[in-house]
C-alpha cells in the first residue's frame, strides 16, 4: 500500500526562506525526500536550480551538510564520500549509524555532463542514492536543451522544437545491475516517499529519477505543477516503475497502462497545456508531429512492457 500524503512525517529538511520559484517541482520533491531520509544524511549538489535555491554563503536552506561539486562529478564525488565514511567507521573514527549519502542533481548533471562518472559509480556499486530531478532542460541557465528534453519541446537552443526523442536514463541505470532503480514524480508523493525509504535501506548504488515539470521551462501556470505531473503519467509520457535487483514492477497508475487495463490518455491535451510545444505544433503538419510524439511515448510503453518481462 502506498503511504498516504497525510501520513508523511511532519519533519522538514527543506527550510523556509529558500530561493526556489513558486510551484517549483524540484523543491516539492526534495521536501518529500527529506521526510523519507531524515536529518542523518549528506547532500551533494552539482550546478543547478537546487543550488540557486539553497541560499547564498553562509546561509543554507537545507538541513543537511551540503557539498557543491564540479558539474560532471556527482557520481565520483558521492563515491568518495561514501567510501570515506565507511573506512572511517571501520577504523573506529565514526560512531553510530552512517549518514545516507545522496546526490541531488538535475537532468543536465545526470543525462549529459555527469553520465560518465555516474555510470562508473553505478558499475562499482558504491553506496549512495543518486536523485535526478528531471525538468527536461537546463532550467537554471534559462532553459536549454538536454538529453532529457522530449521531441518537439522548445528550449533556447531548440527554438523550433527539439527533433530527437529523449533517452531512457532510468533504464540505462538499471542495465548497470544496481540493486535499486525507481522513477517518480511530484503528483504521487506517497509513491516517491516509499521509494526513498526503500532506497535508504538498500546497500549499494540506488538511482531515483523524479519528473519535475518546471513552469518556466514548460510554460504553464505555476499553480499547475502537480496537475502537469499527473497528466504526464496519465498519458504515459512518464512511467512510474521501480526495479529491485533488476526485476521491474510498475506502480499505479502506470501499471494499468502497461497491463493494458487502461489506455493512456492521448498526448494532445498534455502537449496543449504547455507552451513549450507551441512552435513545433504550429502549421499544417501539426497532426503528423503530434503523431511523432505519440509514437515516442507508445514505443517506450511497449519497450518497457517487454523489458519488464525479462527477469534473470
Amino acid at each position, binding site marked *: 500500500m502506498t503511504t498516504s500524503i497525510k501520513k508523511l512525517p511532519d519533519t522538514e529538511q527543506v527550510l523556509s526562506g529558500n530561493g526556489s520559484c513558486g510551484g517549483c517541482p524540484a523543491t516539492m520533491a526534495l521536501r518529500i525526500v527529506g521526510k523519507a531520509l531524515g*536529518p*542523518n*544524511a*549528506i547532500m*551533494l549538489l552539482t550546478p543547478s536550480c537546487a*543550488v*540557486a535555491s*539553497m*541560499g*547564498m*554563503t*553562509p546561509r*543554507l536552506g*537545507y*538541513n*543537511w*551538510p*551540503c*557539498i*557543491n*561539486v*564540479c558539474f*560532471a*562529478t556527482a*557520481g*565520483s*564525488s*558521492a*563515491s*568518495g*564520500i561514501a*567510501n*570515506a*565514511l*565507511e*573506512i*572511517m567507521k*571501520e*577504523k573506529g*573514527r*565514526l560512531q553510530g549509524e552512517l*549518514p545516507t549519502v545522496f546526490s541531488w542533481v538535475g537532468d543536465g548533471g545526470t543525462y549529459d555532463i555527469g553520465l*560518465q*562518472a555516474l*555510470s*562508473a559509480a553505478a558499475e*562499482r556499486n*558504491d553506496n549512495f542514492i543518486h536523485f535526478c530531478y528531471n525538468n527536461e532542460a537546463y532550467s537554471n541557465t534559462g532553459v536549454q536543451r538536454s538529453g532529457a528534453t522530449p521531441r518537439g519541446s522548445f528550449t533556447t537552443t531548440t527554438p523550433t522544437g527539439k527533433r530527437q526523442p529523449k533517452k531512457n536514463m532510468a533504464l540505462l541505470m538499471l542495465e548497470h545491475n544496481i540493486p535499486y532503480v525507481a522513477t517518480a514524480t511530484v503528483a504521487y508523493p506517497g509513491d516517491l516517499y516509499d521509494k526513498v525509504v526503500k532506497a535508504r535501506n538498500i546497500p549499494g548504488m540506488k538511482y531515483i529519477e523524479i519528473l519535475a515539470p518546471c513552469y518556466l521551462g514548460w510554460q504553464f501556470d505555476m499553480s499547475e505543477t502537480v496537475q502537469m505531473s499527473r497528466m504526464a503519467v496519465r498519458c504515459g509520457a512518464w512511467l512510474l516503475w521501480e526495479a529491485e535487483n533488476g526485476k521491474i514492477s510498475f506502480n499505479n497508475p502506470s501499471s494499468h497502462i502497461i497491463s493494458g487495463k487502461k489506455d493512456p490518455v492521448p498526448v494532445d491535451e498534455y502537449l496543449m497545456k504547455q507552451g513549450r510545444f507551441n512552435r513545433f505544433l504550429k502549421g499544417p503538419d501539426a497532426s503528423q508531429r503530434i503523431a511523432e510524439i505519440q509514437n515516442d511515448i507508445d514505443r517506450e510503453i511497449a519497450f518497457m512492457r517487454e523489458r519488464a518481462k525479462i527477469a534473470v
Partner: protein
Amino acid sequence: MQAAQVIMVTGAHAAALAVKSARVDVVPGYPITPQTSIMEALAAMVENDELDARFIPVEGEHSALVAAVAASAAGARVFTATSANGLLYMHEVLHMASGGRLPVVMCNVNRGIFAPWTLWADHQDSFAQRDTGWIQYHCSSNQEVFNTILQAFRVAEQVNIPVMVNFDGFAISHCLMPLTVPPQEDIDRFLPPYQPEWRLDPAHPSSFSNVTNAPEYAVFRQMLSRDILASIPLVKQAAQEYKDITGMWDGDTIDTYRLEDAEVVALAVNSMAAELRLSIDILREQGIKAGLLRPRLILPFPAEDIMEALPRNAQVMVLDRNYNFGHNGGILASELKSALFGRRSDITVKNRVMGIGGLDLTRRFMAAEIRAMMDE
C-alpha cells in the same frame, strides 16, 4: 625500537610506500603512464590488507581527484596520483581542492603534454598548473619522493591547502635506487592522524563551496593567497623535524650544492638537478666556480630563500624543462627574474630550455651548455 630498513625500489614504489606509511584512508586511482605503477602498488597493498584504506578504481582522472576531494571533505586522509594529460584533465578539480581548502596530497609523475604524444619527462604538465593554488614540490630522487610525500601531508593538513609532489617519469618513477624506510613509529610521530577542523557532518549542517557574493568570494581568494605564502615556514619546519626524527635531509624550500663560493649557479628542478651535481663537479674540475641551486618548492616560489642563498654577482643559468610560451625561454627563469627584479641587481640570469619530451640530459651535456651560456 625498530631500525630503518634499506630496500631497492623504483620511485613509483617509493611513493606508494610513503602513502602506506602515511596511513591514508582513501585512494582513488586511474592509470596513466608513467604514474600507473603507483596505483598498481597501492591497489595491491589494499587487497593484501597491508594498507587499511579504500581503493576506488575510478573511470578517469577528473573523477580520481574529485573522489579524493570529496573523501577529504568527509574527513578522510586521501591520496591520488597522475601524469601529464591526466593532470590537465583534473584542472578544474585542482581549483576545487585549493578553493575548498582540502589537504589532498597528489603525486604528479612529470611527462610531456599531448599533442603530439610523448611518454617521456618534461615539466610542462606541473608548471602549467602553477596558478591553481596548490603547493608544489619537485623531487630529484626516490628517497626524496618518499620523504616529501610525508612532509606534504603534514604541511597540507596544517594549512588546509592541497600539495602536489612532482617527480620525473621513468628517470625516477621506473628506476631502482636504495630507499631508507624509517620505522613506522617514527613516521607516526612525524605525521599524527588527520584531525580535520571541519568535515561534512549531519550533526553540524553547513554548506561547502556554495554560491558566494563578491565580498565573501574575494575574502576566500585573499585568504588562499595569503596562506599559500604562509606555508613556507611550515615547509621548512617539516623538513627540519623530519630530519630530526629520521636523520634524512633533501633541503627545505631549496637544496644547494657547492653554492657558497659559486660564481656560476645552475638552477633547475627534478631529476636533471640530481644529474647537475655531476655537471658542477665537471665544471669545478675545469676551474669554474660552479654551484647548484635546486628549488624543491616552486609554489609558493621560495624567493627569499633563493635571494639569501645566491652569492654576490653570481651568473644564474636557469635550465628549464618546459616552455614559457609567449616569452623566450622557460617558466622557472621567469619566476626567478620576477623574484629578483628591483632587489638583486648584482645577479645575471641566463636561460635555456632543454630535455623536452625526455631528451637525454647527461652531466657532460649540461656542463657544456652552462659553459656555452657563460660566453653569451
